[in-house]
């Protein structure tokens, strides 16, 4: 009995000791945030046991104090996001949260405003043929772009941002061991410094997206004197403890909890940013983020979804900024090759290889009803890839007409003779006689409930014209995995898939290649998962690689017309791109060309 008593007591003592140790440990380790930057405040909080601050080279973690100091402002705003940014280097993981904090702290050569206009950041001006910044060799079909940098931009330690930083960044990206892939990388022959504020990018072909290649929402210029080239572009410590040349500096990062940014006193725009402190809080649950907005404990909710926007519409303290142009378009991808194969010629899909079937399914889907009933009316009907500036094309939208859809299926040899409400092949092009019109409709679970409801509604609408869909839901990491990993789409193991996609930035060329080029139909070589091969389209894609904007517009609209006629996929409607924010916050503007902090320096608080 004595031993028993000792044991019980020991257990309880141990438990409470553990509890007290945890409490005490956290208490010692937690650092009080320093709300305002001062000339002597370090850029990054010191690492501690429970609050490991990002680390970098010992000499780099504490940049020297800046020479000028802006007067402290008492203003502070809180942005809530569901997960930590993986780093400040958005191109590595492309979660959007990395771009959010990157835009607060770092500058690229250029950026894009919500209307799709490209504007210079580090660049002194946008190089064009007219101003002599772009030189095209018509014979060799190559080009050179001469960039001039602003001469008044400094890193937070006072070191000027120069062409050396650009060359350093390019070399790090292009390193075959530790670098990464970026759009148009294959076109770049080299980046050479001319003087401290001038450099030349040589292209091995004509690359129309050159203006935003080292800017936009994915790429910034990294400090050569601070980042460790040995660690490599994708893994260097300076991506977690960045040295800022943007409006804010990172002051503290408690992983999983919050990040604190203070005004960069060395920012080249002396009167900006207006807000002294930006706090990014990690709040995984959308309902909690919404409640925090309503209660005034959060100022910005990044990427607010339709149900939350709807819930917030009558809240007096909250407004919603909606992007002028959407990006993500809900769409149905048809597999033109038989399920489990990737060759649409040798093994055409028994049902979907016939373009009339694809056109009929498009006519049977009531896009407005899905948008209204599931997406609270915030979806905007979209029927062509080229729907937004600068390459919006005038393609007439398809009409919802189930009767005409049914008639088209009849004419294609799909008739319901046995009266079971599912059509069978009676003289159709590719299926066996009598084969039922049954297919699998797959979507991904990560998007959430609206996508699953849309899947059900689409199946219901298709059922009305005698097309039966079996519904399947998988994780995105299964749907989009490589062929080697068993990816459903890369292996062609689907009939019809439903998900959302869209291109970033202003240049759709790479996106169109990726989704519709013949070469991209090969597994693990591209994302032409429809296995749609069209020679005219491929020829137009080649023509799109020109700097003549008039030609490009014409070429893109010709492509849009082919896609509209051939229907390798059906574009339905765009989902909302919006940020809910407190009414006290002014100057905020949601955008699909970037993340919401693209203009954080212009924000102010009432």
């Amino acid at each position, binding site marked *: 009995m004595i031993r028993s008593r000792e044991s019980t007591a020991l257990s309880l003592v141990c*438990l409470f000791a553990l509890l007290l140790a945890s409490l005490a440990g956290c208490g010692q*380790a937690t650092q009080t945030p320093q709300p305002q930057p001062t000339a002597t405040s370090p850029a990054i909080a010191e690492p501690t046991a429970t609050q490991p601050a990002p680390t970098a080279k010992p000499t780099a973690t504490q940049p020297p104090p800046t020479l000028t100091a802006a007067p402290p402002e008492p203003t502070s705003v809180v942005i809530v996001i569901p997960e930590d940014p993986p780093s400040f280097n958005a191109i590595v993981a492309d979660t959007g949260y990395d771009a959010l904090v990157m835009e607060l702290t770092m500058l690229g050569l250029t950026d894009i405003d919500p209307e799709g206009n490209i504007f210079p950041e580090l660049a002194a001006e946008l190089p064009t043929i007219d101003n002599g910044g772009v030189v095209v060799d018509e014979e060799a079909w190559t080009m050179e772009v001469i960039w001039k940098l602003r001469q008044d931009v400094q890193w937070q330690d006072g070191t000027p941002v120069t062409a050396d930083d650009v060359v350093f960044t390019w070399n790090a990206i292009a390193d075959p061991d530790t670098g*990464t892939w970026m759009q148009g990388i294959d076109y770049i022959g080299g980046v050479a410094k001319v003087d401290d504020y001038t450099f030349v990018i040589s292209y091995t072909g004509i690359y129309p997206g050159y203006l935003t290649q080292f800017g936009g929402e994915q790429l910034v210029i990294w400090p050569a004197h601070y980042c460790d080239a040995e660690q490599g572009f994708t893994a260097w410590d300076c991506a977690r403890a960045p040295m800022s040349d943007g409006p804010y500096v990172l002051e503290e990062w408690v992983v999983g909890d919050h990040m604190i940014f203070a005004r960069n006193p060395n920012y080249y725009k002396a009167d900006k940013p207006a807000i002294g402190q930006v706090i990014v809080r*990690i709040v995984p649950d959308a309902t909690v983020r919404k409640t925090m907005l309503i209660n005034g404990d959060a100022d910005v909710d990044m990427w607010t979804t339709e149900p939350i926007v709807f819930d917030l519409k009558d809240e007096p303290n909250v407004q919603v900024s909606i992007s002028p142009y959407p990006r993500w378009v809900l769409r149905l991808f048809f597999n033109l090759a038989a399920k489990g194969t990737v060759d649409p010629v040798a093994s055409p899909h028994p049902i979907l290889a016939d373009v009339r079937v694809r056109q009929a399914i498009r006519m049977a889907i009531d896009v407005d009803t899905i948008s209204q009933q599931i997406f609270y009316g915030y979806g905007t009907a979209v029927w062509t890839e080229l729907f937004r500036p600068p390459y919006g094309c005038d393609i007439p939208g398809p009409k919802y007409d189930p009767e005409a859809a049914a008639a088209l299926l009849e004419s294609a040899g799909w008739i319901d003779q046995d009266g079971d409400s599912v059509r069978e092949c009676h003289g159709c092009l590719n299926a066996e006689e009598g084969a039922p019109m049954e297919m699998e409709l797959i979507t991904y679970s*990560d998007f959430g409930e609206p996508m699953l409801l849309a899947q059900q509604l689409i199946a219901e609408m298709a059922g009305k014209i005698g097309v039966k869909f079996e519904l399947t839901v998988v994780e995105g990491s*299964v749907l*989009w995995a490589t062929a080697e990993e068993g990816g459903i789409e890369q292996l062609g193991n689907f009939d019809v898939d439903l998900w959302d996609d869209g291109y970033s930035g202003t240049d759709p060329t790479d996106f169109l290649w990726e989704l519709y080029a013949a070469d991209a139909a090969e597994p693990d070589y591209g*994302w032409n998962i429809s296995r749609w091969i069209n020679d005219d389209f491929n020829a137009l894609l080649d023509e799109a690689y020109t700097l003549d904007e008039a030609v490009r517009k014409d070429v893109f609209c010709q492509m849009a017309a082919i896609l509209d006629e051939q229907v390798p996929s059906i574009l339905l409607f765009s989902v909302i791109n919006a940020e809910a924010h407190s009414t006290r916050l002014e100057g905020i503007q949601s955008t699909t060309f970037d993340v919401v902090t693209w203009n954080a320096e212009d924000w102010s608080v009432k």
Partner: protein
Amino acid sequence: MTAYLARRLLQTVALLFLLSIVLFALVNLAPGGPLAGHGQSRHVRPERAAILKRQFGLDKSLPLQYVIWLAGNDWMKVDADGDGVADSYGTRKGILRGDFGFSFRTREPALKEIGQRLPNTILLMAVTMSVAILIAIPIGIISALRQYSIYDIAVTTFSFAGQAIPEFWLGLILILVFYATLKSPFSGEPLLPAGGMYTLGIGFSLGDRIKHLILPVATGALGWIAWYSRFLRSSMLDVIHQDYLRTARAKGLPERTVIYRHALRNAIIPLVTLLALDLPYLIGGTVFVEMIFSWPGMGRLYYQSALQRDYPVLLAILIIGATAIILSNLLADVLYAYVDPRIRYD
């Protein structure tokens, strides 16, 4: 006992080795993979996927990947630049030398990722389990002593409800009540915070820490209270009908002494074992509570790693969790022998 312990520890090593193979295979063979699109990238360009594959070491065969994960690759030449020629020694040391690799997502060492979350989870779970035990023990005792009384029926109903209510639902309801609705009569601020570990900008305050713990602990503890109290009730009922209790009463011992010195001491032995077996929860955390209350703990890290197929972090959590489970089982056996003199391991 020493021989027994030595034998068990040896078995533990063998078991962990087998587990490492099984876990590595399960994680890698699960559908999908880390090269699929996440975040903004619905689809990853094949050129990018090829680079990632090489950087993540996924270009090797699965058995070789396991060997590297276990024993590192600093003793073998690897093709780091993708030119098809193995020209430099690798940098990985392997888990046997404490290198669990780097997170595919953040490129930070997996152990660092875990180290950032572990203390937070231990804090939350230690408080949750302590509160659960402190409440469950009296509930279980009274429930057993007053079997079939209104109190017992009420507690039984509460227990079933406690086990049945999903944590994510209860957590949101508590936030709506104590954060969104009820305000402090003094400051007008919400009565309790919606989440996080502490209030930013006020420095360390024990009261503030406790305020932030109340809702997540209440949400997490409810199920434990129900579980432990039912267990103790059942255990007490077994004991109080034993002959030695009748003898104790016949000796004229006061009822309080009979219950607390003779009945509870024996009834609590299985609960001690149960507690030891539950110790892995201290480091495993709880996904729903951490998600709802924005608690930066292991549960969230595990969920995120699983969803994004961050193999190194996922495997590190699983291996550490498995080790904790095996050791807690060993601890439970040892404790059992310690608290119950009838048990001997020879």
